[in-house]
């Protein structure tokens, strides 16, 4: 079965001296996006992951923006292929509230 590897940025500015990366291996399915991956990780692996899940999922609101392999994108529009490794980070490290959640504006 095809798999996806996700390396996810984790950081709590209040308690962690340094950010770290957690690695998750997930099943692949056609059309999966980075947002789908984050929801999958939260649902099945790790409830401590901070990300913005209240989203339109339809390329509009931009609330799900993250950095995918170094490029700022709407995660609902970042398609992942079979066998891919994706590095998921906050789009602005200076404004991290926790993990992938960033202060907007």
């Amino acid at each position, binding site marked *: 079965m095809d798999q996806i590897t996700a390396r996810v940025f984790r950081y709590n500015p209040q308690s962690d001296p340094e950010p770290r990366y957690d690695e998750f291996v997930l099943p692949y399915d056609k*059309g999966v996006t980075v947002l789908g991956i984050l929801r999958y990780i939260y649902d099945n692996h790790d409830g401590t992951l901070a990300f913005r899940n209240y989203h*339109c999922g339809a390329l509009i609101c931009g609330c799900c923006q993250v950095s995918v392999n170094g490029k700022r994108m709407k995660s609902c529009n970042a398609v992942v292929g079979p066998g891919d490794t994706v590095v998921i980070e906050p789009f602005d490290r200076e404004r991290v509230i926790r993990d992938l959640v960033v202060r*907007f504006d």
Partner: protein
Amino acid sequence: MDQVRVDVLIIGGGGAGVRAAIEADQNGVSVALVNKGIISRSGLTPMAGYSYQAAFGHADPRDNPEVHFADTVREGRYLGDENLIWALTREAMERGLELEGYGVRFTREEGKFAQVRHPGQTYPRINRIPGRGYQMMLGLKKELARHSRIQVFEDCLVQKILTGPEGEPAGAVAFLQREGQFRLFQAKAVVLASGGYEELWEKTDTAPDSTGDGLAMAAELGAELVDLEMMLYYPIVTLGSKVFPSMHQVLQYESLLEPEYLGGKLLNGRGEEFLPPGKLPVRDVLSRLIVKERVEGRATDRGAVLIDLSKSPLGPAEMERRIEELGARVQFNRVKYLGVDLTRDPVEVAPACHYSLGGVRINERTQTSVPGLFAAGEVSGNIHGANRISGNALAETQVFGRRAGAGASLKARACREFPPIRREDAEENVRRIEGLFVRKADPLRPVQIRKKIQRIMEEEAGLIRSEPSLRRALDRLQAVKQEDLPRMQVADLRIFNYELQDAVEVGSMVEVAELVARAALLRTESRGHHFRSDHPREDEGWRKHTLLKKRGEEVLCSSAPVIRL
């Protein structure tokens, strides 16, 4: 616990809540606006399409608010309160012009609104916002920023409305996700603008934060709730992936299927057309036609039908031209990432929850049955009836948002003093939340319980229900309440703990789910989006509201006449 004291507290920062805040500020009262996410990047309004319905009569001079009123009453299957529909249809134009004043761009041609006709409308009456609900929200947000006295709290989870000595709303207790702290709000009037409850089901095209929180809080205060069985299904929504099931995308069928627009076809699993000839059906009718194909074994393996634009008589160049002209590109982009070219590939679609028709009962001043509690937008329940025509939702946010802001200001001005809050209530709520962090012997994550509730609602209280299925729903929900909720445990984190939000939402969901099942049990007929397999016909005697009211743990069920003009 830090405290915020304002005249008017508004819960929910979508179209209705922001409009209410602007109005209250203009009336000179102090306002706090709290929102579960980021304003314009959460909730329901930013996800809406381009449709703002208002009878300017620019496309056809015969159109006017009376015709808009008649269309809304008829297509709501005579279940909307006519005083509210009249307010909506009479004021939608003025509120639309105000939106333009806030900087929201509508499509105009030679100065006039370029209106189009959607199903259920006698004349073309849809005024288009090319940037859709999202741009409307950005305009409102910009206007909100001009009212600098309004205190805005984002990423703020309201858990409970607190009451004064007479049981009147006197504030709320909330958790600020960014700070990881509780906040006590004290207010003279409270406006609920917290949206609907689509998330109770597995298949929705809305954001995952539409969990009925405001409805659950209103129920707890003993407010009257009306027609909760009415969940509007949008007929044409993509299925999503089996591994990543949340990815449902709404496809606006009017532009895709109407012969005068893109001329696509809707086919069953055998590739046959099944829509009756003539005008494109409105949403409840189309949803039922699709379900009929499923029930009679003519759907695809996944219980869906196919939308197919390759069968359109239009050539590729004309197709492209019309997609641009209609502003329909976004729907093509929405499925592109799945590797689907909507102009060429047939796509599986089925009905999914789209808009909460039922909700808190209001009057034309947006007062609920609890004095001092106002409601506007999707959280309210008696405007549209058993079905809603396209474009009335965005108009509703503005018309009733403004009215709620005005009503709450008046109420606050009439109160000389802040009603005293029982601090124990706030503290009890803090203890309840703290209890979620406590380690349990056999813990359940909120997401597990959420999925269970959604499964129950999908199986027993979905598009087709019956007395036996609804009774099973109530039994299964009772088991969730008694056996699962006490085991719910969240990650021990204070700053932006998504699991904590999930847990608070699950608490709302199970309460509202039970009320929905009870309301659905009460309505022994089929009307609009409520389909009972054991009562498949519309019953003249049921041209009335179902009415629910909580008193402690007891739910009082009755009915109420629809208000006629």
